């Protein structure tokens, strides 16, 4: 049913329909509305769940870890500093193979402290072992949460999934959303059936000490499972399309790629702006296109290769940094093509929209203009040089 909803409310609604038994989160802007709405939903008796108000994000992640380990579906949400505070628990959850589902409202990282949107928090956690999916708009954010539960809880996967939505832009933006019904959700998402859990009828020891004789295989298996997820995601989105009528690839989405001479690669809500710019430029005969990456982890190497191998000029937009080195998304995209005969003539790297600095249509047009065949490395768009100085006296 179509409703005009704030992004946070839409996410709270889909989480409610997924019926988690335990919800635990710690407030941090701009995730707060999601959790507040869920608290009200539980208080109004619309969802039978234990709502646990914890004293930190580290404990929020630990609570949902304990809940899923006991065989009960769980949910949490966070952002920025909170994501970092729970970071060791996140690596732990992935290593313990527990399908926790979490929303991250992507936000800049302190210092300096800044509560507005970029990707520094989520991209920094790409090594944690979580599946990481990025939403372009609120509809996709809603749909990705449903897919996330189905994907993470799959018996062969058993991995936690992070659904990233740009803070404020998507969490506090308003959009007409086609919200699934409970019947549709129940058709797509069966109840969680844990292959291993804390159960007095069948005792097991979870989280043992694993010495050098055994540890490597545990990590190898995690990596292999990400490859298995790469194969499973398109199957799940195909099934999703049958139930809900909305088509996603789940790994990448090409927009006007076919004969594009210049292609921008990007994640998240900026893709909406890029699509509008592409429409404007195409109307003027410019051959431009977009490759949107939905799944940062598992990283869709083959899908990216197939999409871009014939594109002459590629520019990767990063909204995160790996300070001291190549911008992270651009480095991974470049790695796809190393050693390949078919590849773009050049792959440039641009950084845009840090700490909530607006990415306008002009910013995107500037990037297309700068894609002139010369290699650009980590070039910041819309930078204000007047704010920079060499020394502090």
């Amino acid at each position: 049913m179509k409703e005009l909803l704030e992004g946070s409310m839409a996410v709270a609604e889909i989480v409610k329909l997924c019926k988690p038994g335990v919800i635990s989160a710690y407030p941090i802007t701009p995730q707060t509305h999601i959790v507040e709405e869920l608290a009200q939903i539980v208080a109004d008796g619309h969802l039978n769940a234990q709502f646990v108000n914890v004293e930190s994000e580290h404990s929020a992640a630990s609570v949902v870890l304990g809940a899923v380990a006991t065989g009960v579906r769980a949910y949490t949400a966070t952002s920025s500093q909170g994501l970092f505070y729970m970071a060791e628990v996140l690596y732990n959850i992935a290593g313990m193979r527990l399908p926790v589902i979490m929303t991250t409202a992507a936000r800049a990282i302190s210092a300096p402290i800044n509560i507005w949107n970029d990707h520094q928090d989520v991209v920094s956690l790409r090594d944690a072992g979580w599946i990481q999916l990025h939403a372009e708009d609120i509809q996709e954010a809603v749909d990705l949460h449903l897919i996330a539960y189905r994907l993470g809880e799959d018996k062969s996967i058993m991995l936690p999934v992070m659904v990233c939505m740009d803070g404020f832009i998507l969490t506090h933006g308003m959009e007409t959303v086609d919200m699934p019904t409970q019947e549709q959700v129940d058709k797509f998402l069966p109840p969680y059936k844990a292959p291993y859990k804390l159960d007095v009828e069948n005792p097991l020891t979870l989280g043992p000490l694993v010495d050098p004789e055994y540890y490597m295989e545990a990590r190898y298996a995690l990596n292999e499972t990400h490859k298995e997820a790469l194969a499973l995601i398109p199957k799940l989105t195909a099934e999703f399309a049958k139930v809900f009528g909305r088509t996603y690839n789940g790994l990448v989405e090409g927009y006007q790629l076919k004969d594009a001479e210049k292609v921008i690669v990007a994640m998240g809500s900026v893709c909406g702006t890029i699509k509008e710019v592409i429409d404007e430029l195409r109307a003027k005969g410019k051959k431009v296109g977009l490759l949107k990456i939905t799944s940062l982890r598992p990283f869709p190497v083959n899908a990216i290769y197939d999409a871009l191998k014939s594109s002459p000029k590629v520019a990767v937009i990063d909204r995160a940094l790996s300070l001291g080195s190549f911008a992270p998304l651009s480095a991974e995209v470049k790695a796809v093509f190393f050693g390949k005969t078919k590849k773009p003539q050049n792959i440039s790297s641009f950084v845009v929209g840090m700490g909530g600095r607006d990415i306008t249509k002009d910013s995107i047009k500037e990037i297309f203009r700068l894609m002139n065949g010369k290699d650009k490395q980590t070039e910041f768009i819309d930078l204000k040089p007047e704010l920079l100085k060499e020394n502090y006296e």
Partner: protein
Amino acid sequence: MSKTLFAPGHTACAGCGQSMAARLVLDAAGPNTIIVNNTGCLEVFSTKYPESSWEVPFIHSLFENAAAVASGVESAIKYLGKADNINIIAQGGDGSSADIGLQALSGMLERGHNILYVCYDNEAYMNTGVQRSGLTPFDTNTTTSPAGIASIGNLRPKKPMPEIANAHGIPYVAVASSGFGQDLQRKVKKALSIKGPKYIQVHAPCPLGWRHETNLTIQVAKLAVETGLYPLIEYENGALSVRRQITPKPVEEYLKTQGRFKHLLNKPEEIKKIQDIADNNIKKYGLRAEAQGV
């Protein structure tokens, strides 16, 4: 072999006070128990893949979050409607309970979860090599509070964890000792019969870290209690309700059994400071047994 839920074959040191206590706690709780453990000696020596001593469901996550993970387990059990039949025990050493895990413990106590938290107090970070913790006693020689020409050892008194737990307004707090195994089991059973958060602190001698012979574990634990240095007390609904009464022995009898206090034995002024701590405990908790026939 006696019937127990904590199987032998674990790799605890010979004479480990914590392994004695952990087995007694688990056997008192029974098979309908889920254990949530912090990183530390107990978890490391009892769950080295592929072997585990635990005959009940057991989970270890990180160093400081057993109280929070247990909160999640308890919430899940409540959601499943099984809350009345299953004990949930969160455990950790003194380091993971009083220091790095204090926040998670405080949150668990404040939220009122139906969980028993057991702190095995061997008075230092033993698993990483005997480093000083918030529960290391005054004047103790540890690797990060060593005694030397410029220092007498740990300069701070023990963090009053039982009182801190009690201040959260929880229904039951108890202090127990590996040296008094049946008393420990009584306290565990009593705690598990009460709904809400409970805290039990167990004094657990560590022959390796405290530097005493392996066969003295029980004797050392008993002396700590009998000198007044480790009062065995219970708080019920905030009020001190039970204390084990003693005929106090001088603290030197306790200190001379362990290498970690060896540097004090020729310093009567330091021993006096420790005697003051014991005397304060005896006064504060009313530990002195009434003299017979007086």
